[in-house]
Each structure stands twice: as C-alpha cells, then as structure tokens.
C-alpha cells in the first residue's frame, strides 16, 4: 500500500442499473472518491442517488459496469466490502420495539463483533451521539433527530473506513439538521473517515462536501468542489448605481478581474471574480474619475444557481415505486416524532 499518497477509496466505472429491463436508474456513471474526503451525490428526487448508493453498499447488483470500495469489487467481493463500510440508510431502520442500546448491539452482532467488544463500543457511540441517557428507552419514543443519531451510531459500530449516508437529514428540522452536520464534520475531522453521502438539499452539499457530483436522470452532469462549481458559473455579481447620468460601462470593464458588465434600468450588473476585492477597486476607479457610487450590493453565486444551471429549472414529476414512496412517508412521519 502506498503510504502518504492519497488513495482512491471508491471507484466506479460505467456503473449502470436498469430496473425491469427498461427503467434506467443509473446510466454509466464514473467517479472516484479519495481517502478522507466527503463526497456528495446531489440531485433531484428520482435522479438515481439512492440506487447508486445501494449498489455501492452491495444491496443492489449493478446491471453493467463495476465499482470498488477499498479495492474490493462490489459484485465479486461483496462480503469484504460489507465488512469495510458503514451504512446510514435514508429510512429509520432501527427496530421500534427495541431500546436504543439493544439496536446498537443488534448491529454489532450482525458484524460478528464479540459481545465484550461491542458493549464497550456501544457505550462509546451512545456517548458520541448523546443518547446515553435514553439508551434504555424504546426507539418508538425517540424524536426524529434522536433516531437519526441512533442510525449514525449503528453505522459506526464496525469502525468503518467509509461511511455511506443516504439523505442524512431528510425530514429534520433546522436545528437538528445543523447538529447532524456537526456530527458528520466531526467524523471526517477526528477520525479521518471517508464519507459518501447523497442529498437533495443544496445547502447541505455546500456546507459538508469536499466534492460534489450532480446527478440527473441517472447521469453525472458535473463533478467538482462547491467552490469550483460556483466559480464555473462566472463568479460573483456586483450590482451598483451612481449619482451621475453618464454611461460608465467601458470604465468598469477595464477594471481588473471584471468579466462582464450589463446596464439594466440604471443599474450596473457586474460579473467578477473575487467580488469582495473587486468591488472596492471599482469604487476607487469610479471615485478617481469623479463618479460617486450611491448603492452597491454583492452576491455570491450559491449552489442553487449551479444546480439549476445543470438540472434545469422545472420541478420533476418522477415516477417512483409505491414501495419507496411508502418508505419515505414512514421516514418523514418518524422524523416528526409522530
């Protein structure tokens, strides 16, 4: 093993899943995830995110193509893959009739972890996700956030090298979502864990992921860090107006880092790199030429623009199986703590 060199933890080549011979859920997808990064799959509902994750965690068999996790082939060495990974599914899969502690021990047993080891780990994990005081309560009494934390603890019981998170904050309120993000960030920071997650929340991908693959209709449309994706759109937007009536488009265009200027209803819309630095420069140039700026605003492109740029603006009416719809409904109901 090459030590000190970044390693590809997940590699997918031409990964494809076709359901019932005709429904192409994932279409020849290629990507790789390096050690220690948070890699996000972002896309609208029905884009193929969960199908991809289910293939990587060996629950679904690919129709075509291959993928490997830590060098193990997901089809031929599924057993080794399963021992290496941890999974936090989209649904709340903890058994309602068991206590939080019993659920974690059940997960440990499924990995064949001896009881003396699993007891200790369960205690540590319950501490980590702050459920120690609720560990002997049945899961049916848990709130959405507590259930999500319990799923997280279960996914970590085998000390996985890669953790797969499918829509980790689906249906959670803002506070719980932010708290969940903190847990995810901590896993990366403290344990150097590699994380693969799917989400359809843009701000989530932006806040957590080192790199994002935007997937739509089963195909990856772009991959990159949130910053690069945003910069590819053409940079920040500075909007300003001046007291005087004259057209200063030419003057602004010559300023460094300005890419494009448009005049609209007396407002100048300026596309520029590093808006925070460019805006003062523009003000300075204008002041030196005797113009005074009356108002100015700076907008950074959000992943929202990137996303819409790639996936189109319309809402999708995707066909979803009754099964996944029911699962999602149950998940949302539990998230709200019923």
């Amino acid at each position, binding site marked *: 093993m090459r030590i000190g060199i970044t390693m590809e933890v997940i590699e997918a080549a031409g990964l494809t899943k076709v359901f019932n011979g005709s429904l192409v859920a994932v279409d020849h997808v290629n990507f790789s995830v390096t050690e220690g990064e948070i890699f996000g799959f972002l896309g609208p509902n029905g884009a193929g995110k969960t199908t991809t994750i289910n293939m990587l965690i*060996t629950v679904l068999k690919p129709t075509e193509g291959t993928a490997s996790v830590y060098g193990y082939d997901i089809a031929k060495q599924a057993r080794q893959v399963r021992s290496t*990974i941890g999974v936090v599914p989209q*649904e709340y899969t903890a058994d309602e009739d068991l206590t939080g502690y019993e659920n974690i021990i059940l997960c440990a*047993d*499924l*990995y*064949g972890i001896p009881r003396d080891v699993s007891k200790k780990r369960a205690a540590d994990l319950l501490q980590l996700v702050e459920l120690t005081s609720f560990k002997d309560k049945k899961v049916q009494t848990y709130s959405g956030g507590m259930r999500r934390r319990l799923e997280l603890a279960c996914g970590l019981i085998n000390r996985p090298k890669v953790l797969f998170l499918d829509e980790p904050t689906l249906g959670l309120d803002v506070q719980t979502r932010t708290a969940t993000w903190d847990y995810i960030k901590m896993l990366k920071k403290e344990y150097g864990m590699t994380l693969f997650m799917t989400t359809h929340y843009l701000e989530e991908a932006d806040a957590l992921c080192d790199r994002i693959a935007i997937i739509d209709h089963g195909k990856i449309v772009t991959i990159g860090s949130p910053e690069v994706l945003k910069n590819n759109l053409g940079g920040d937007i500075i909007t300003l107006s001046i007291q005087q009536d004259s057209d200063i488009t030419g003057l602004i265009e010559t300023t460094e880092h300005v890419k494009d200027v448009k005049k609209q209803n007396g407002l100048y819309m300026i596309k520029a790199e590093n808006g925070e630095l460019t805006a003062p420069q523009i003000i300075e140039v204008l002041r030196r030429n005797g113009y005074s700026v009356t108002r100015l605003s700076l907008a950074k492109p959000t992943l929202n623009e990137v996303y819409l740029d790639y996936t189109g603006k319309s809402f999708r009416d995707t066909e979803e199986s009754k*099964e996944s719809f029911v699962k999602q409904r*149950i998940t949302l109901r539990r998230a709200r703590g019923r």
Partner: protein
Amino acid sequence: MSRPNGQYAAVLHGLWALTNRDLKKWYKEPILFFISILQPALWMGLFGKAMNLGAVLSSNPAIPPDAAKQIMRQTFGTSDYFSFMAVGMLSFVVLFTTMFSGMSIVWDRRLGFLNKVLSTPVARGVIIFSKVLSATLRSTAQSAIVIIIALLLGLQLSPDFNPLNLLGVFAIIFLVCVGLSSLFVLIAIRSTRWETQMAVVNLLNLPLMFGSNAFFPTRMMPDWLQPAVRMNPVTYTTDALRQLLILNTDVTQLMIDFTYLGIFAAIFASVGIVLSWRYLSK
C-alpha cells in the same frame, strides 16, 4: 484470511441476533404474549368443548351409550372428541405461528431494515433462516403451553404414554415448523406488499388446516379430497402427535410421519436458503 472457525461463530452470532430480535417482539410484549396463548386456549375451549361431536351420539336416546363410545372410538381412535381435537389444535397453533414468519420479512423490507441487514456481512441464508428459527422457537413454546392447557381442560393421555414421548412431540413440531415457515418466508421473499402476503397466507391457511386430519379423520372424507389430505404435512404432524399423546403408538406409521416431515423440512429450508442468495438483493 479465511478462518473457518471464526466464520462459523460469526454465522451463529448473526443468526441468533436476528432470531432474538424477532422473538423479543413477542416475549417482551406482555399483551401479545398473553393473546398468543389465549387464542389457542379459546379455540380449544370453544371448538373442542362446545362442538362436542361425542355428544351428538351420546345424547341420542336411540343409540346405546356403549355403542356411542364404540362409534367414537372407531371414528376418531378415541372415545373423547376433545382429546382428538386438542391435538389437532397443536397443529393449528403451529400453522398460525409460522404463517406470520413471512409477514415480518415483508415489513422488514418495507421499513428498510432488510436493506440495512443486507449491507452487513451477515450471510444471506442466515437472514432467511432467522425468520424460520424464530417462528419455530415461538411455536414450540406456544405448543408446550397449549399441551398444559389441554391437560387442564381434560385431555386424556393414552395409557402407554411415556414422558419421553414429549421429546418426540417437540421433534415433530420442530420439523413441521421449519418446513412451514420456510414455505411462508419463500412466498414473502420478493413481496413488498403485506396485503398480498396476507391474502396468500389466508388462501393457503384454510386448505392446509381443513384439508388435513386435524379436526376430522381422513378416511371419512370424500374420495377426491383424500389424496390431497395425504400430501398435507399438517396431516402427518397431527397423526404423529396423536400417536405420541393419545393413541397407542404405531411405530411404523410414526416413522413414516417423521420421514415425511423430515424431507418436507429439509426441502423447503434448502430451497429457502438457495433462493435467498438469488432473490434477497435485486
């Protein structure tokens, strides 16, 4: 890398964890546990005591009491219809417990638990077999309680009953449970709707129960029905249980019962495990 011993231990570890998860839902829920015992007791009390076929004969003044007993003995092998019926009730308990083993796998699929289990290294066959095993253990426990209730309600054990016969009783119950719950789990293995599973189970349940000798002797049934009854595992179960509990044991027939149920259990359990490799993941 491969350490056979460690792997066998891991298989048993996972098997017991999943089995115990299903069992806990039953024994840790006092109401459910109580109902699951009350139900066969009610059946026995109402069906066996109220529908007393013996009384049809004994209360008829045209039939002398001795002749009535004689007819009963010739028909049911014992003059006491309740004893005949109570043993049939044991088969009934087994059938009803095992039919739900398929339901829980449908729910596990629906709630996403199955997917989570599938992403762990636990062997695929173990997932299926844990359902079979939990249904088996549950029926065995329920059957033991039903036998006690039946004794309290007046089950007459055969004169040559030997406490060792109980081992035979539980061996029979074990075999038929493994076979039947494998069958019901097999039906459920691809199912995503519990409604469908419920309909199929109900459809199968009636012929399995009444197309057997559990409540009525086979040879008095219509000719067209008898071959079907003779293929029904419930028939062999009930016959073996009657021989061990209330009748004089016919060793040859008992061996045939054991063999038939053994083959039944082996075939369905293996088919279940083989299909789980193919069909649990899509």
